[in-house]
């Protein structure tokens, strides 16, 4: 199970070059998202859609409120 993190840890990881992925639907991502986040909706998360991600670097996923 992935490590759950809070805001302070997120900022630290971003400073270290972590990749940020919003997994909400595209319309919600288009409305507003965290700077530099890319969008891979949960329903589209598969081997192809994750190809842009660098597997050697940290990946932080987020949605609206974790639910």
């Amino acid at each position, binding site marked *: 199970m992935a490590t759950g993190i809070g805001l302070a840890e997120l900022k630290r990881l971003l400073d270290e070059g972590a990749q940020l992925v919003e997994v909400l639907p595209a319309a919600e991502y*288009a409305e507003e998202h*965290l700077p530099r986040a890319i969008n891979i909706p949960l329903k589209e*998360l598969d081997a192809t859609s994750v190809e842009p991600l660098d597997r050697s670097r940290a990946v932080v996923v987020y949605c609206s409120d974790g639910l």
Partner: protein
Amino acid sequence: MSPRAACRLETLGFDPGLVFDYTLGKADWLANGLPREGETVAILYAGEVVDADPPTCPLDTPVAAIRQTLDSSRYGFCLVLTADRIVLGRVRRSALDAAHASATAEQVMEPGPSTVRFNTRAEDLVQRLAKRDLKTAVVTTPSGCLVGVFHRDDAAARLGRAAT
């Protein structure tokens, strides 16, 4: 949703030690007043139109000092904060008149005043305040740290300018 996404990344072969879930998500980020991108960035949030420097004091402030602060201020209240700016209470000017000279902020404050989040839409908050005939709202981060005081009239004027 994000816990399942993190799990899915691991099943796709990502190193579990490099996969993290920001559990509080976008709601937490925005409520902390951090930068955002997207189609709605032009929409004003309450936290973007606050007075970030309202009258404040620590718990042990004598009422005489609070009175002096308010006498030179547009405010009818002083917010009582911890050293790390968590909002504990509010001292209204009216409470000072009845207070003993040796009283402190802690003794005359109203504990736990209502607050709103940074990312409340300013337009919505103007309407909510108007409905209740209120002029201000205290804006805090999710952890209760003071962002500032939202003034209904100031925000309405700014929204009006933005619309023209």
